[in-house]
């Protein structure tokens, strides 16, 4: 049975990432449909950068992005919570020592 989400009529979904300014990371802004990478770049440029929102565009086919499973969030991210010794505030340095 065909699920609602399966139809793409050949125009694949691409996720779009834009670097707003030199020095910043590429940020996810949304998606476009396209049949090839060049079209995806042009579509991304026309849909997401009309107001000088960026200087660089990445397009990635949505199907190629692998993501962590929210069901695994506890196992993936909780264990970092109690490793407070990774943070500088954990350490008690006397005030007289200026440059640490």
């Amino acid at each position, binding site marked *: 049975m065909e699920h609602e989400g399966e139809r793409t009529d050949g125009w694949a979904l691409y996720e779009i990432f834009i670097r707003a300014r030199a020095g910043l990371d590429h940020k996810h802004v949304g998606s476009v449909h396209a049949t090839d990478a060049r079209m995806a770049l042009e579509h991304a440029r*026309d849909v997401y950068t009309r107001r000088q929102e960026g200087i660089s565009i990445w397009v990635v086919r949505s199907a190629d992005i692998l993501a962590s499973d929210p069901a695994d969030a506890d196992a993936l991210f909780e264990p970092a919570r109690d490793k407070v010794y990774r943070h500088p505030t954990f350490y008690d340095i006397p005030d007289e020592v200026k440059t640490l």
Partner: protein
Amino acid sequence: MSATATASAAPDAAVAAARVRYVLRLADASLVLAQRLGEWIGHAPALEEDLGLANTALDLMGQARLLLGYAGELEGQGRDEDALAFLREEHEFLNPTLVEQPNGDFAHTIVRQFLFDAWQHELYTGLTSSSDERLAAIAAKALKETRYHLSYSSGWVVRLGDGTEESHARMQGALDALWPYTSELVETDELDRKMIAAGVAPPMEPMAAAWSARIDAVLRDATLARPAAAIYRWSGKQGRHSEHLGYLLADMQHLARTYPGATW
């Protein structure tokens, strides 16, 4: 930027008048093509193409406004961009006949766009070295836009030329229908010769050759056949147009002519 900074050293009335007409040719080409593309917005084959065609239209409108403004200054009779756009008659418009052709289907529109973009790319590249500083500046800015338009339209020519049997047939049909309008782009007339002599316009032969070579390369990739040269010579750039311009202007100019002197 004053008009005097851009005039040639010897104030020759004939050359000055020719310059106005030359700038109007450039302006009207962008204006009329923008008007045609405006008809597509909301009706394109895909949502992203609505945005892409609108982008080209907006760039062309920007070019038209800059060029019309300049033409009005050169003319020195107080006509601004709107006076020139909305109150001139058909025979006073100097766009090449190619750009006033109806949109037809997407094949027609994309072929018309590609033939024009490839031409505008050579022309604006050449104009960046114009003795007319204002024109050179406008061309330098517009060239960035034209490069994107050309990438967009040539991409579609290839996709549709080498797509399905239906798309190929539509593209070849469009190319055959529109090809006769291209001779006007690459041939010099007296106005062109005057402007080339004044250093305002770039020499035609290198531009024509580069244009032709690019057309050949893209058509090859698109598996499309370059049509034979047409016999009839169109002359929109001299103010002799096809029947289509009349309807286009009637639509475009209606409000301005109905309410003379009104501001909007």
